[in-house]
């Protein structure tokens, strides 16, 4: 057998010495390193036991929210306006897949995925929690659910989640009043009660859905679950059931609402109908409307820009936020101010030559009737809507009196309706002009304020509200959308009591009657500007037509409707209530660029009144 070459003599003693010396060093090192490990164990297991026990407990038990079911919304007759439908959402848990893009490609073969879907998915992917499912497609139909389910086994991390999705069965009808829900956005997240919304993905964005979010949402439930690190629930330790949201009954009557919306035809505009006795908002129409279902699961950019950029502005709630000059519809109120402040009596007459001018001012303030109305008293001035009469009256009253009197109806202030977003309109005064425009008040501005032009702005809701106040001889009722709240657990229904606004508008009975009788003649007399709606009328209506200038007409220039492009045509207005003897409904209609109030706006009001008072359904 071969043996080792002996290159040099081995010094065994020295070799052993060195080796043993090194071995001792190694042993000391081993001992100290073992001690280091032990120290670490003492630190972890003894000194920090409580800390780690807590972490371990938190690791094991997690609290999962159970979102409450959102309350339903009904109209005053129990017609369902907003409900929750089961819907299937396709969710991806990216932690469970090897190649997300490959999975997306596979899914794309099974169901249609739009570019928008993938874009939204990739956007949401960037900020999500570990093992959180990211929605890829909403509202899968049965076929799609089946195709995914069959292939699910080869696509780990692809889940179908059954959720409840808000649905508005009537679609676009009343969408401005009901509003819609949408995904909670970053700003909303900041102001929300985080724990109550921990399981909720949607929140009321507009209309009733937003205003009564607190009632509709309910209270979140919790389940304490034991999970593994994948977030998979192993078992439920404890469960607190959620309190479902409350069901709402609105004062709205969808039949009225439908008639109101359809009444506009191709026009845009708004109609508000109020029951003067309790302030119940019977119809709140803003035309055009939109389908709120589009917004529930995130509207596509294309659809949204279509809605946003449409010149008809369907997303704009005209009933609450549209601020229009009231035009001649303000005249009954100015007339009442004149009577109440003793500037005129019902029998006082003026001569109307068709124009009016101030002293030392060559400018002519024109009447809508070129040749004038001749001898005109208050009633005739309202019935025929004589501008010159009100120029005279305004001059006599002065802007301060006009402002103060109209303010007692609530003009220039939000009505306080229970939907958000209402605009206050504008009731001009000297103080306002000095503050905002840094200019003094000019007498000419008083004149045009008297016929509802100039600075004055009102919303359709305000007009309906002051009409209701007028019909009730000054009793002001708070306009209110909500009729009752139902608690689903015990089916208890709480009816919202009507609220009066104090103080009521003060005027003598005689003066109220004078104005109301004049307004009745607007509809029921031969010369009334709204006489055409009295045809086959089985009840009485008191009303007032109006036109609001969209653009200024130069001195002595004729306004010829057909010469003006549609967008610049005057707005047509009508306010009215019925029956005159026992008012049950007060309406304000504005038809944008509709032209004549009597011809375009008043007929819509008549249809709504017919439905409400005669139950003459469509």
């Amino acid at each position: 057998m071969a043996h080792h070459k002996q290159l040099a003599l081995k010094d065994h003693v020295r070799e052993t010495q060195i080796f043993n010396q090194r071995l001792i060093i190694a042993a000391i090192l081993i001992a100290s390193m073992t001690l280091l490990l032990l120290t670490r164990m003492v630190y972890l297991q003894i000194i920090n036991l409580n800390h780690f026990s807590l972490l371990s407990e938190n690791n094991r038990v997690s609290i999962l929210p159970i979102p409450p079911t959102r309350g339903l919304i009904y109209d005053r007759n129990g017609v369902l306006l907003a409900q929750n439908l089961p819907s299937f959402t396709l969710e991806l848990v990216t932690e469970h897949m090897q190649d997300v893009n490959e999975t997306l490609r596979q899914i794309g073969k099974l169901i249609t995925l739009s570019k928008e879907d993938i874009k939204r998915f990739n956007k949401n992917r960037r900020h999500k929690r570990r093992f959180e499912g990211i929605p890829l497609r909403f509202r899968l139909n049965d076929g799609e659910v089946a195709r995914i389910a069959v292939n699910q086994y080869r696509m780990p991390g692809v889940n179908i989640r059954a959720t409840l999705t808000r649905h508005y069965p009537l679609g676009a009808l009343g969408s401005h009043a009901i509003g819609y829900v949408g995904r909670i956005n970053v700003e909303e997240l900041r102001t929300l009660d985080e724990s109550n919304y921990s399981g909720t993905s949607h929140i009321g964005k507009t209309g009733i859905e937003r205003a009564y979010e607190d009632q509709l949402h309910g209270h979140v439930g919790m389940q304490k679950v034991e999970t593994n690190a994948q977030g998979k629930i192993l078992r439920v330790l404890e469960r607190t059931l959620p309190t479902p949201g409350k069901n709402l009954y609105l004062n709205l009557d969808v039949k009225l609402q439908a008639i109101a919306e359809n009444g506009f035809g191709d026009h845009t505009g708004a109609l508000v109908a109020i029951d003067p006795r309790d302030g119940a908002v019977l119809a709140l129409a803003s035309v055009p409307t939109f389908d709120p279902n589009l917004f529930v699961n995130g509207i596509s950019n294309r659809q949204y820009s279509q809605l946003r950029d449409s010149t008809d502005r369907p997303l704009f709630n005209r009933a609450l936020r549209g601020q229009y000059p009231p035009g001649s519809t303000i005249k009954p109120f100015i007339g009442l101010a004149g009577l109440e402040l003793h500037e005129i009596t019902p029998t006082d007459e003026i001569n109307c030559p068709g124009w009016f001018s101030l002293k030392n001012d060559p400018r002519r303030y024109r009447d809508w009737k070129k040749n004038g109305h001749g001898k005109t008293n208050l009633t005739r001035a309202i019935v025929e809507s004589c501008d010159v009469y009100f120029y005279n009256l305004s001059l006599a009253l002065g802007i301060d009196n006009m402002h103060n009197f109209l303010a007692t109806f609530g003009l220039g202030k939000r009505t306080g309706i229970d939907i958000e977003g209402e605009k206050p309109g504008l009731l001009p005064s000297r103080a306002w002009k000095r503050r905002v425009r840094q200019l003094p008040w000019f007498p000419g501005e008083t004149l045009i304020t008297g016929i509802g032009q100039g600075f004055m702005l009102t919303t359709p809701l305000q007009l309906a509200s002051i009409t209701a106040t007028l019909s009730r001889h000054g009793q002001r009722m708070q306009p209110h959308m909500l009729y009752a709240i139902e608690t689903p657990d015990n089916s208890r229904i709480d009816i919202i009591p009507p609220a009066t606004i104090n103080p009521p508008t003060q005027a003598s009975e005689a003066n109220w009657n004078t104005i109301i009788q004049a307004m009745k003649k607007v509809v029921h007399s031969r010369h009334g500007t709204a006489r055409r709606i009295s045809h086959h009328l089985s009840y009485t209506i008191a009303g007032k037509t109006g036109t609001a200038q969209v653009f200024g007409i130069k001195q002595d220039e004729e306004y010829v409707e057909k010469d003006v492009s549609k967008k610049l045509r005057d707005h047509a207005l009508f306010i009215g209530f019925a029956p005159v003897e026992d008012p049950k409904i007060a309406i304000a209609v504005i038809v944008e660029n509709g032209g004549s109030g009597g011809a375009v706006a008043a007929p819509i009001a008549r249809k709504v009144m017919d439905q409400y008072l005669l139950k003459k359904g469509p």
Partner: protein
Amino acid sequence: MDFSTPLLHDAPTRRNRFIYLRIDWPLLIALLLLASMGLFILYSASGQNMAVVQAQGLRILLAFFIMLLLAQIAPYGIQFWSPWLYGLGLLLLLAVLIMGEIGKGAQRWLDLGLVTFQPSEIMKLAVPMMIAWYFAEAPLPANRKRLVIAGVLLIIPTLLVAKQPDLGTSLLIASSGIFVLLLAGLSLRFISVFLFFILASTPLAWNYLLHDYQRQRVLTFINPENDPLGAGYHIIQSTIAIGSGGIYGKGWLNGTQSHLDFLPERSTDFIFAVFSEEFGFIGVLILLSLYSFIIARGLIIASQAQHTYGRLLAGSITLTFFVYVFVNIGMVSGILPVVGVPLPLVSYGGTSIVTLLAGFGILMSIHTHRKLMPT
């Protein structure tokens, strides 16, 4: 000095004259205790999966058989075959590397049709064997030329394994070789030069040798809270498991961290966390005592070895065993970065157990083949 010892079977010494098998009983008993403890923990860590425990039990049986087989071979036989084993291991590592190049991807395994195995495991033993063999040829302390050659013998397989990439194994291979160098009496000057070289090459290694995930591991080790749900997850979860065990532990099969899937790699590299969670500080003390006993026994065997090759190899095997223990427990308890080093004889996985017990077989062989007459 007697170099004419037969290659395979030496005559039984008087000490174990009546025992046919050459066995170091203290070592065997300690190893058996450790292995059975490992099976108990594995049963818990695997989610009470008896099939896993059975498979591991079979591997342990095989490994003990190999250990006892090696114990019967005289150290000179092992010494004789050392360069051949080293050469074979190197060839296999190159084969893996080439196949990896062809297969475009990381490759550690060699598929031999019937069985697949990791050539790097061979090197864990072949490298210290080779260097011990090389040093045994000439008187110690070795001269500079021989040290350089020994260094090359060490670095080539280390780099090949590190390139696979298998940082844990290459670390073990490197340390097993370095231990031989140190025990052989590497001068302090050399050690300092070597340390300087290591430090100087750190940036190079960082940039060229380490893979992204390895760099990430080191960065994560420095600050695990930086990325609590990503790479730091393992460390955080395992320290929670250990810490929540307390003094007495949560009891066998009662570890919540491990049973609820919070613990990664819980039956392999992170099994120590399961153990500490269920058996607490007391259990850790027992486990460390067992390891300490085995290491102490190994050091005694090394110090009592009669020949250069035997003592160098026995010392290296024992110290490397400690490196396993220290690196694994260190990484699981969060004082070392995560490198893939198993907890010896406890972690699930066959190859490392075979290598480890083969090493102890060599230890036993060295110890049981001593001559009674001191040289």
